[in-house]
């Protein structure tokens, strides 16, 4: 009896001392936009995370996972840093996630390095972020990852001359350079590179300029929402499609604003890693699970980035609990079947390697809605911008 009592006491003490043994709670801090003009991202992330949790439970291995959401409101590096500090110190989170904008991710790099906190980027697509800290993991994509394969594919289609038209800001210029480099390497010619002010509301002058050069295609890069809407509308209304100038893009036809583009979007060609119309059981299951839980939800690349990011966090927690370096090691070459298709972590860049698909916008015959129909895989690539 005496021995039994002692054993029980020892077990209790052991449980209290070793924080990452069994039945503890591992907290994950999600820093994203839940208010303001970019609140769509926060909503997409949250729906995806909650759908994953509903499907897999709050238990990962021996640990319970809890998500804490913090609103960063937009591209606010200072706020992102403060929130990360608050989460790490006061809430004692073991993992961070979210991050729509590059500056927000870069701002937390020193913190996660110091605290050895694995941080899963759901969106921010600038290649160099992952060089900022070895604790960054990325389940979205990088701009060169989709742009360079598109340029190669374009040339192979017999398109020899292209005008690039990009919004005049960081990602736009990156896309322009990546496209131009890959396209000219193949032997194609970028006849004009137009940079459009971010505040542009009427795109007609730029579209007329494209038209007057009469290229085989126009490669565009614009932030989602009103600029994409304006550009694609103007592209169609000014008869570029009719005169045989093809539209090439990447994220422009993303699902959350696709229906708003209307019939003007039909026939637009894009290269991207995720389409809600991806033809696989995992994709259909994912769409159904999210719609069962959130009837008005629309899945787009932000949803799949968060969904796969949550998967990665679960795998890390399962393997290593709250031990950051061990967690990184455990998933550095993880492979899984994502709703976007097969993916795997690249041990060097810590960004997912994935298929890039060539898609055309079509009206689905069953639902009557516009979809990004995948016409083929153009490449399976890692982060092509890593060595630049």
């Amino acid at each position, binding site marked *: 009896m005496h021995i039994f009592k002692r054993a029980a006491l020892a077990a209790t003490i052991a449980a209290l001392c070793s924080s990452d043994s069994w039945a503890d709670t591992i907290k994950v801090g999600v820093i994203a936009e839940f208010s303001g003009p970019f609140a769509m991202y926060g909503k997409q992330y949250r729906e995806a995370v909650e759908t994953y949790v509903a499907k897999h439970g709050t238990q990962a291995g021996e640990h319970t996972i809890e998500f804490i959401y913090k609103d960063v409101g937009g591209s606010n590096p200072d706020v992102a840093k403060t929130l990360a500090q608050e989460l790490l110190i006061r809430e004692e989170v073991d993992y961070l996630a979210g991050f729509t904008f590059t500056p927000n991710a870069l701002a937390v790099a020193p913190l996660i390095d110091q605290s050895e906190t694995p941080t899963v980027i759901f969106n921010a697509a600038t290649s160099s972020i992952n060089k900022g800290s070895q604790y960054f993991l990325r389940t979205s994509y990088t701009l060169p990852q989709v742009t360079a394969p598109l340029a190669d594919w374009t040339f192979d289609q017999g398109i020899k001359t292209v005008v690039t038209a990009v919004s005049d800001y960081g990602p736009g210029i990156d896309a322009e350079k990546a496209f131009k480099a890959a396209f000219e390497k193949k032997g194609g010619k970028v006849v004009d590179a137009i940079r459009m*002010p971010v505040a542009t509301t009427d795109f007609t002058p730029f579209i007329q300029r494209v038209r007057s050069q009469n290229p085989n295609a126009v490669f565009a890069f614009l932030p989602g929402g009103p600029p994409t809407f304006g550009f694609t509308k103007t592209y169609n209304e000014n008869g570029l499609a009719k005169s045989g100038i093809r539209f090439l893009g990447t994220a422009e036809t993303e699902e959350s604003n696709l229906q708003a583009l209307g019939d003007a979007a039909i026939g637009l060609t894009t290269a991207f890693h995720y389409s809600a119309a991806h033809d696989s059981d995992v994709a259909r299951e994912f769409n159904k699970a999210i719609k069962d839980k959130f009837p008005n939800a629309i899945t787009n690349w932000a949803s799949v980035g968060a969904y796969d990011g949550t998967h990665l966090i679960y795998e890390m927690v399962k393997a290593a609990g709250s031990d950051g370096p061990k967690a990184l090691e455990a998933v550095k070459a993880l492979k899984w079947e994502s709703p976007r298709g097969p993916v795997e972590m690249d041990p060097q860049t810590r960004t997912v390697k994935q298929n890039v698909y060539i898609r055309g916008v079509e009206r689905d015959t069953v639902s009557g809605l516009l979809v990004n129909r995948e016409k083929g895989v153009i490449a399976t690539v890692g982060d092509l911008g890593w060595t630049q």
Partner: protein
Amino acid sequence: MSLLLNIAVDGIAYGMILFMISVGLSVTMGLMRVINLAHGAFALVGGALAHTITLRWGIGYYVAVPLAIAGTIALALLSERVLFRRIYRLGELQQVLATIGITFMVIAVVNRLLGSSLLSIPLPASLQHSLDLGFRVLPAHRLVVILAGIAVIIGLVLTLDRSRFGTRLRASVDNRNIASSLGINTDRIYAATFCLGAGLAALGGILGSELLPIDAYYPLRYMVLFLIVVSVGGMGSISGSFAAALALGVLETASRYLIPDAGTIVFFALVMALLAFRPAGLLGKGMT
């Protein structure tokens, strides 16, 4: 030659859109002298109603647009009674704070009810085609905006300068006490004018949405644009706004054709230069 024609056609089409989206503000801020930063909120309400009526209820465009405008006017009448009537008497800074607060509330409500993605208002087939001008094409809806802009400016000038309502309005704004002691029901005049401004805001929001699409952040995204048109035109002058909108549209379009990289700088530099030399705007009479 074709470049000049392009600039003229696109500039006028764009200028008319600028006029349509800001004419409501010329009425409330210009004529009534209320710093109405909630102008965009009424445009958003109009656009959101048109979106709901056409897409969710499946009613045709030509019925939906008047319904959406009527709905906005009804809401404007209510909010005038409850809120704006009190705001008229406040100082300028308080008006700014109150109306921008209302704008944030409207944004939050629309965001809550309809989400933060684009709220499209699909055009009927008759407006979707493009007209062939010989040397280029012009989308039909831009022609509609140009015609609507001309109709609105003629209608407003006739109403404000020639009608009894216009005389009473100008009297009420110039000196409310004397106007009401002369037997003019100034409360009613103010309410009617405010509703006119809100209705025009809704019309402009809907017609302009092919270029400036409606979403929950519409009022903030384009607030600077509305304010520029009204202040360049001159407070209290509808024809000033009209001239300003066309001039700004043509100048911005020209700069985008000729020096595309500096388009935005040219636009704002011209606005600053003009306001430096004519602080009251092109045709303004100055604030009293």
